Structures are given as structure tokens and as C-alpha cells.
């Protein structure tokens, strides 16, 4: 897989990313023209930055990669990531911008003044969610380097982890916004190029032709599971795509095809668990909420979010076509990776493999480089969020109220290093998981820990300090238990079946806990001032 052209492009894109990190702030200060940070384009800049932040390894590698191995059920990932921004737009974006607080801890303590327990709970939730979001990025980056360089996964993950931590703590911290904007443009463009080349080269410029072929394919992950213990497994590397597809379809004629629902989420509870976790998760993701800090006016919060919806919606539609096309065109390779124990490549690398097939080493380099830069910038955003909440919400507010700015920044950087190392360790243990699946778990936790507490704080006058704490605690405990059970492969917890996402249990549990405790207590905080701020005139 290693080639001079692809490697050069990857290194070139990473160099551009680091160059932007170094020079963008200088450019934004010393330019003699008003073409940056101007008032008129701020919402568009923010939309692109939010898009770049949001389109991580999960979206670029994971969504199409998951569709390529599991079929239609994994279109839920893109659909849910998209729908989450509608929830954010309708319920939280503008009130949060009006309140002017962008970590959950700060939102809560601006209504429930001086509550250290809420501040600590907000910090703990942000760390747990962001860590779960960092891990899939590192898994994706490790698999990318494994594919590109032929290194072992362990070495790849360690190198990625060290690189990311160094990037964030030395300079990347100050330029994430500009990098996010570039990442947004690069990832969107590369996905479009892959789609156009794929459709014109292999499907006669007919998009619907992709679905016609998908109708006759048994998803590779399902097929490889069925063939795993079969003594007569052929050598798929010697087959063409159509031969491989026909062989499997003939062998398993009764199995569902790629556009039949139910392969990944076999029943309504699993489907709804995934749907709930995804659509309410975005509104609870700490690094997404933090980015609204950069939006200039409340109205811009809405226009930026609509810009994001248009951009990510278009992107996820492309991933659906690319995913199904990759399933067919890469069928022999994907089957071979699964059957030879290289699942980490099979479940995450369909997009770069397809890029190489349709665009040679140049497009492979762009795809891997783009994905790698996306991972760098998304992890930077996540680690900065963790650093911010640990240093500000915990260290400055709970440990040392007289901390200087310098101490606060130092603690943030230490937290970033610690979380980066934890991300590496967890990434090593979760090598064979699809990155989009891991991200959906982070979404489920965000949907349970932060979404309900933010929603009720902003919209319910009767909500109390104790109710808010109960909401976060119950959401955190229930979601962590069920995520842990899902990752270790446990079928049930106390007789309750473990689903593909915890949110179907943890979100209602958190809401019920918040409502019940609020009705039993009466400390509604500084509700009048808070509601005026959140819902008053701009």
C-alpha cells in the first residue's frame, strides 16, 4: 500500500494542517484587508468550522465504511448525526448563545449559582463523553497508518497518540478553528471526488445503479461470520467483485441483502436505541456546544447551524452511495480482511481503499491525508474541550479559586496529555471496532448525560438544582453500565437486554430522575434572570 505519491500527499496535507495552526492567527491579526473574521461572513465561517469539527474519522471513514460491511442499517449513523443538529437548532443553539455559556457546567451554574456538585458533574460528564469520542478517532488513525505504512496497529496508535498530544499542546490549540474550516472543505471535496469517479468509472454515471447491485449482495460482515468456520472458504483475493458477490449469494440465498433492514439492528428496540442515541446525542456533545462560543450573535447561531445541516446532510447522502459502491467494488478485499483476522482494516478502511481503486495513489493520498487531518483537528477540539472543563470547571472553581491564567492553562495541558494517553490505551483495546459504532456510543452517553439536563435547565422553570444533579448522575451511571456491557459483549444487565446503544434506557431514566427529584425539591435557582437571558430579546 505504501507509495511515494500517496505518502507525499499525506505528509503534504499534514504539513498544511500544521502550517495553518502556526500561521492562521498571524494572518488573522496582520492582514491589511477585511477578508477574514468579517462580520458578514462569520456565520459561514462558523458553519464550515462546525462542519470540520463534526466530520471526524467517524463520518469520513466510519459511516461509509460501516455501510460497506453491514448495509442499510448503518445509514442510521449518518442520518442520526444529521438529525442531531436539528435538535440542537430547535432546542438549544440560540438559548445557549444568548446565555453566553458553552460548557454544561457553566450553563448549569449560571442558573444554579455556586453549585460545586453541578460544576463537578458537568466536568465529569464532559470528560467521559469526550474520551469516548477521542478513542474512535485514535482507532481510525491507527488503522489508517496500518494501511498506509504497513506498521503494526499498536505502533500506529502510539505514534498517532504522541503526534496528536504534541500538536494540541504546542500550537494546535490556538488555531483549531481555522483548521476545522480547511478540514471541512477537504473532507467534503474528497468525498465528492470519490463519488463522482466511482459512479462515472464503474456505474455508467447512474447513481441508482449502485442500489441495483447492492440488492444482490450479502453484507460482507454477515457473510464472513457465516463463512468463518466453513472448511471450503475460497481465496477471495483471486476473485473479481462480481465473482465474489455471486459466490456468497449462491451459498447463502436466504440471507438478507445489503438494502434489507435488520442486519445490524435486528429488532425495534435496537433500532430505536440507535435512533434516540444519535439524534439527541449531538445536542449533548461538549465539543459541539463549545464551538458555539465562536458564533458572534444569537441569530448567527441559527444560520450557522442551518449551514452545517446543508453541508453535513450533503456529505452523509454521499456516504450512502459511496458505502454501497464500496461494498460491491471491494467485496473480495473486505471478505479477505475479515477472514484473515484484519477486521480493523475491513470495518474502517473502505473509503481509502475505494479511493485507491477509482483514483489511484493520488486519491488514496488525499483520502488518507484528509482523514488524518480530520482526526487531528477533531481530537484537538475534543482535547481542548477536556482541557477547558478540567482546568476551568474543576481546578479553578473547585480546587484553586485563586488560580492564575498561567496555572489554568498548565492544568489544561496536563489534562490534555492525560486524556490523550488514556485515549491511546483504550484505542489499543478496541482495535477491531468500527469507528462510527464507537462514536455512536459516545453519542448515546451525551444524549443521556447532557442533553436532558441542558434541555430542562433551559426550558423548564420548575427544574431544580437537585433535579439537575439527579439527571446527570442517572444518565451517567446507566449509560456507562450499558456501554461497558456492550463493549465486553454481555447480553444482559440484571435481566435487561443490552442494546447497540444505551440511550433507549439511559435517556428516559435521566429525564424521569430529573422530573421526580425536581417535583420533590424546590431550589429552582436564579430562574427569572436565567430565563430572561436565554429567551429574551437578542
Amino acid at each position: 500500500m505504501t507509495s511515494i505519491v500517496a505518502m507525499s500527499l499525506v505528509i503534504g496535507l499534514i504539513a498544511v494542517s500544521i502550517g495553518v495552526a502556526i500561521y492562521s492567527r498571524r494572518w488573522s491579526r496582520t492582514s491589511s484587508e477585511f477578508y477574514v473574521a468579517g462580520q458578514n461572513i462569520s456565520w459561514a465561517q462558523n458553519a464550515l468550522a462546525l462542519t470540520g469539527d463534526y466530520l471526524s474519522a467517524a463520518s469520513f471513514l466510519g459511516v461509509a465504511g460501516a455501510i460497506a460491511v453491514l448495509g442499510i442499517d448503518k445509514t442510521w449513523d449518518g442520518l442520526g448525526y444529521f438529525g442531531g443538529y436539528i435538535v440542537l437548532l430547535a432546542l438549544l443553539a440560540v438559548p445557549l448563545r444568548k446565555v453566553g455559556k458553552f460548557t454544561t457546567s457553566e450553563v448549569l451554574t449560571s442558573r444554579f449559582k455556586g453549585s460545586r456538585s453541578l460544576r463537578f458533574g458537568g466536568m465529569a460528564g464532559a470528560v467521559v463523553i469526550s474520551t469516548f469520542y477521542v478513542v474512535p478517532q485514535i482507532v481510525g488513525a491507527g488503522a489508517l497508518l496500518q494501511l498506509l505504512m504497513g506498521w503494526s496497529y499498536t505502533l500506529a496508535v502510539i505514534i498517532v497518540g504522541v503526534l496528536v498530544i504534541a500538536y494540541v499542546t504546542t500550537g494546535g490549540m490556538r488555531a483549531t478553528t481555522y483548521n476545522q474550516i480547511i478540514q471541512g472543505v477537504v473532507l467534503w471535496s474528497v468525498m465528492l471526488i470519490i463519488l463522482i469517479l466511482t459512479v462515472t468509472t464503474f456505474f455508467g454515471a447512474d447513481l441508482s445503479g449502485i442500489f441495483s447491485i447492492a440488492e444482490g449482495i450479502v453484507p460482507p460482515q454477515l457473510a464472513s461470520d457465516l463463512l468463518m468456520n466453513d472448511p471450503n472458504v475460497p481465496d477471495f483475493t483471486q476473485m473479481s467483485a462480481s465473482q465474489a458477490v455471486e459466490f456468497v449469494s449462491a451459498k447463502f440465498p436466504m440471507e438478507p441483502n445489503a438494502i434489507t433492514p435488520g442486519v445490524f439492528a435486528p429488532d425495534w428496540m435496537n433500532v430505536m436505541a440507535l435512533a434516540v442515541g444519535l439524534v439527541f446525542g449531538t445536542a449533548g456533545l461538549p465539543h459541539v456546544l463549545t464551538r458555539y462560543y465562536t458564533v458572534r450573535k444569537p441569530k448567527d447561531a441559527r444560520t450557522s447551524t442551518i449551514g452545517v445541516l446543508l453541508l453535513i446532510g450533503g456529505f452523509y447522502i454521499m456516504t450512502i452511495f459511496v458505502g454501497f459502491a464500496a461494498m460491491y467494488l471491494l467485496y473480495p478485499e473486505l471478505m479477505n480482511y475479515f477472514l484473515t483476522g484484519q477486521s480493523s482494516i475491513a470495518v474502517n478502511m473502505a473509503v481509502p481503499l475505494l479511493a485507491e481503486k477509482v483514483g489511484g495513489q493520488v486519491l488514496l493520498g488525499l483520502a488518507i491525508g484528509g482523514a488524518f487531518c480530520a482526526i487531528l483537528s477533531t481530537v484537538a477540539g475534543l482535547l481542548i474541550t477536556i482541557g477547558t472543563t478540567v482546568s476551568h470547571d474543576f481546578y479553578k472553581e473547585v480546587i484553586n479559586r485563586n488560580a492564575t491564567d498561567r496555572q489554568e492553562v498548565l492544568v489544561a495541558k496536563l489534562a490534555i496529555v492525560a486524556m490523550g494517553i488514556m485515549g491511546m490505551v483504550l484505542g489499543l483495546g478496541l482495535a477491531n471496532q468500527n469507528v462510527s459504532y464507537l462514536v455512536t456510543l459516545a453519542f448515546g452517553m451525551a444524549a443521556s448525560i447532557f442533553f436532558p439536563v441542558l434541555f430542562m435547565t433551559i426550558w423548564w422553570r420548575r427544574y431544580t438544582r437537585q433535579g439537575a444533579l439527579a439527571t446527570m448522575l442517572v444518565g451517567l451511571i446507566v449509560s456507562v453500565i450499558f456501554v461497558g456491557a456492550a463493549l465486553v459483549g454481555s447480553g444482559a444487565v440484571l435481566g435487561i437486554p443490552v442494546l447497540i446503544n444505551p440511550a433507549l434506557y439511559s435517556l428516559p431514566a435521566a429525564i424521569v430522575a430529573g422530573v421526580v427529584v425536581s417535583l420533590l425539591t424546590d431550589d429552582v435557582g436564579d430562574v427569572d434572570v436565567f430565563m430572561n437571558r436565554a429567551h429574551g430579546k437578542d
Partner: protein
Amino acid sequence: MVSLMNRNQGNGQGVILLATDGSKPALMATKKAIELALAFGSMVHTVCVHEELPTTSLERLDEAVHEEQFMGIHAHGNMVAQEYGRIRGVEVVTHTEETGPVVAAILGCAKKLRPDMIVIGNSGRSGWERISLGSVAEGVMKHSPFPVVMTKGIDEAYIEDILTIAQKVLLPTVEEVEELISIGEVRMGRAMGLSLTALLAFLIPYFGLGIFSSFWRDVAIEPVLGSMNVALLWILMLFPMGWLSAIAYHLMVTRREEGRA
């Protein structure tokens, strides 16, 4: 200490434009501008630029920490100049630009005022800060059509008197800025109604897809458009439905807010 670059002449009405951010290098420039105004019988216009940047709080804090060694103090630049001018008997008019880039904002102000000269302090950044942040003073010198006087570095003895004034008008840190709002009647009901309408317009078909594809799987796999089955068409239609819901919501809220205004 002072370098002068002659460029096009200003309006000849005795105006000196001082660019200041309230830091120690800017205090050097402030004092020099006032002294030049006394010498030439000019008045001083000051410009402070408040950068509007799409950056997060930690990004700003990190930059502030690294800038501390070069800034020395972070005072209200316009107020310091005004007070120092009052003491020295020089008329000072203040301007604030609410957006960046800083160099462009200063030059924009200069083009409106057409000063005889621009006075600006050079912080003397070095190393990483120099690479990553550049120099506003050098940017102004490079692009200004007007003469530029640039003070270099910090002379503690020279700014001793003006520093005393600056220490009385320090800028608050971000955390200390707390907006005061009046408590009025907030009508949340209609806002909630609009939000829920937009949300349900998307969520009903979204969750409907999940229920439909779980309980009516045979219907979900029926082909409807070429080889596309019902489930796939439903999925692809949810994206434009989401866009329409979001845009309709935005238009309704905008109309409501204009009505309230």
C-alpha cells in the same frame, strides 16, 4: 527609539492617529503621540480594535498567557490616552473598531481620518510568538499610505507616569464581564411551540422510519423507484425534510423576533 517613514501626506489639519491596545508597548506609543501632538499643535485620535475571532475560550486564554510577557499590562487603551491627554492639555478623540484583522481595522480608521501620522508601539515579540502572531506595528508600517511613527520596546522609566494612569483602568478578564439584563416578561410558550413544531416535523418521520422498518420489514423492502426500496427512499428523503424543517423554523423565528423588535 523612534523611526519615521514618510509616505503620502495626511489631511494637514493636525491629526495624529494613535493605535493602542492598552499594553505597555502601546503606552510608549501613547505618550509619544501626546508629546508629538504638543510639539506640532495637533489633536490625537485613538483607535482600539476589539477582535471578533472564531476561537474558543481556552484558545484565547492560552494566547493571553503567552502574550503576557510582551504586553505587561492590559488596560483600557482609549481611556488611558484620554486621561493622559487631559493632563497634558491635548485633545483626544477615541474610536473603537469591533472587528479584526487588527491591521486592516487600524488602516480603515486611518483612511477615514487621513491623519498626518500614525503612532503605534512595537511589542518586540520574539520566538514562537513572533512566528505565530506576527507584528501589527510592522503590518501597519508596510501597508499604511500615511507616515508611521513606531516606538520600539518598553522603557519603564519613560512610561512611569502614564503607567500609573493605566493601572487604574485595567480591562476586566473575560470571566468578570457579566452582562446586566433587565428582568421582563418572557413568553416561552410560543418559542417552545415553534421549536417543537420544527423538531417534530423531522422526528416523526425519523422515528417513523425505525418503527416502519422494524415492524413492516416486508413492506420496507418493496421496490418503489427502480431498485430502490421503501426504506432506502425514506432514508434519502429525510435529509431534504430536515433541511426544510430547519429553514422554515429559522424563517418563523426571524419573523417572530422582528415582530417583537
